[in-house]
């Protein structure tokens, strides 16, 4: 935990320095942080061993919520728009969750995919409401009451997003360490035991599902505001797949992974696209293969994995000598 905090603090400092050291990269990083929120949503479900290939739906829900509210000219501030984006996405997930959390594994993944594709086609076909394939433009809203020009807006939006991401990441980290979060790991390893403890694993997953949708909605909201545009592609399955890709790239072991993964992904995509326009997806593919082979727990777990092993060794040795109850597994554990 302390090690996670250290990594988090380092990443925070590095990111916070971007507008001063590399001002040209700050919009790119803002976008990466926004996407990182959606990835964090996927990570929450990964804790329970569940993969959603449809989180684009909630990402789009958040983005379109912001777009509709801005187009309605209610004069809502970003500080209000973003929570509303999260709430709308969570509300949709809460309702659909009654259905989705009854499934696991491939069925869970596919049901999410199916519903997100329905949403995608609705966004595309309902031209009069959603602007169809062209999407909707999002005029720049006020940030904390200030109306700003493009340069100022990009600067302050960067820090607003960083602050949001930091607070959200800390809250999600706490949630994952709480009984509800540990319960997700329990769902992954043994639902039978959970039921015999008197706990409804479906209800537990339902909460996680709504939370993860709120995160995706928040991310979509940030992207809508920063890019000034929303499109049906937000709900497309490739988008959803990207979130899963980044989650694996960054690692599901801690909350920082989602953001590190998404920054790395954004950098690879931008630079690989510039230097090797027709090969950048190939490079992404190779980088994922490398991650799976050499750091299966993701980028932020590169060193952490080793540390964990070392920690597990000590008590194992101790109990072999003191406890009397020994077995093959102990020796295997110490090897």
């Amino acid at each position: 935990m302390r090690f996670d905090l250290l990594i988090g603090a380092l990443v925070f400092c590095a990111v916070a320095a971007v507008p001063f050291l590399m001002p040209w990269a700050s919009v790119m990083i803002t976008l990466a942080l926004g996407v990182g929120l959606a990835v964090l949503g996927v990570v929450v479900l990964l804790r329970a061993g569940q993969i959603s290939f449809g989180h684009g739906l909630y990402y789009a829900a958040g983005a379109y919520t912001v777009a509709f509210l801005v187009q309605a000219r209610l004069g809502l501030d970003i500080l209000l728009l973003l929570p509303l984006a999260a709430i709308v996405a969570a509300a949709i997930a809460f309702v659909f969750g009654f259905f989705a959390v009854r499934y696991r594994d491939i069925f869970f993944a596919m049901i999410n995919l199916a519903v997100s594709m329905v949403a995608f086609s609705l966004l595309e076909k309902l031209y009069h409401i959603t602007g169809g394939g062209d999407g909707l433009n999002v005029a720049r809203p006020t940030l904390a009451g200030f109306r700003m020009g493009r340069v100022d807006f990009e600067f302050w939006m960067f820090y607003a997003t960083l602050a949001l991401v930091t607070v959200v990441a800390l809250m999600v980290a706490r949630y994952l360490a709480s009984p509800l979060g540990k319960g997700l790991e329990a769902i992954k390893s043994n639902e039978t035991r959970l039921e015999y403890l008197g706990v409804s694993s479906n209800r537990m997953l339902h909460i996680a599902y709504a939370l993860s949708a709120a995160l995706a909605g928040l991310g979509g909201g940030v992207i809508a505001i920063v890019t000034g545009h929303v499109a049906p592609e937000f709900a497309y399955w490739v988008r959803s797949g990207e979130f899963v890709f980044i989650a694996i790239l960054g690692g599901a072991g801690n909350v920082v992974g989602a953001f590190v993964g998404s920054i790395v992904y954004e950098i690879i995509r931008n630079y690989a696209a510039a230097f090797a326009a027709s090969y950048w997806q190939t490079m992404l593919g190779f980088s994922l293969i490398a991650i799976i082979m050499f750091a299966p727990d993701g980028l932020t777990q590169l060193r952490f994995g080793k540390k964990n092993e070392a920690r597990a060794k000590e008590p194992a040795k101790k109990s072999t000598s003191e406890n009397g109850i020994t077995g093959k597994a102990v020796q295997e554990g110490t090897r």
Partner: protein
Amino acid sequence: MTQAALKAEPVPQEVLRADNLHLRFGGVVAADGASLTAHAGERIAIIGPNGAGKTTFVNICTGYLTPQSGKVLFEGRDITGHKPRDIARGGIGRSFQLPQLFLENTVIDNLLIALAARESSWQPWRRLDRHPKADEMYHMLEVIGLADAAERLVRELPEGMRKLLDIAVALALKPRLIFMDEPTSGVSSREKFTIMDTLVRALDHSATTAIFVEHDMDVVSRYADRVAVWTGGRIALEGTPEVVLNDPDVQKNVIGV
């Protein structure tokens, strides 16, 4: 009920009454008039050949299976066909032939999740290990002799320790009745008494009534107050270990002397 009526209740209180349970899967008769009554504080061993319906009986009583006829009463309440999680919340714990644990979590986290379940304390802003009653679970680890392994992942534990932890997790709910399906199977003969001694200590500590399925007659004769012999989905014989284990039929068909 008046105070007088409360006092008039018979002293060894009836905890479980399974009455004439029937269940068949296609042609297989798993329960054929199975009945058993357990009183507070008793330790009952269920023995019998493979396929006699011992685990089926446990599964019916803990809600995993619903009988086609018959009733299960727990402390006088009908729990027939209730869901496992409702029965667990009602006060019946269960351990398994193959330990059912959260393999990727630490030993103490397994118990703390059980504690959170018992106390319904799901606050997302408090770390699991900061539960106000976490000490109780560390104490439980000491009682079952796993205190040294608290921070180890369950995945790394040997079978004997997993068996104990599986029972400890069930006991963490503070059940008034616990079913244990072969607590000493898969454990070396050297370890079985150690495990049972620890277990009995934990059961006494929490004053829990216990019903356990067991194949090992040493364990049965040493730890059971009463033995029920299962054959063909019902009880063939019931009594104290001395009487039952010396019965010629039981010796021939169950113990295989």
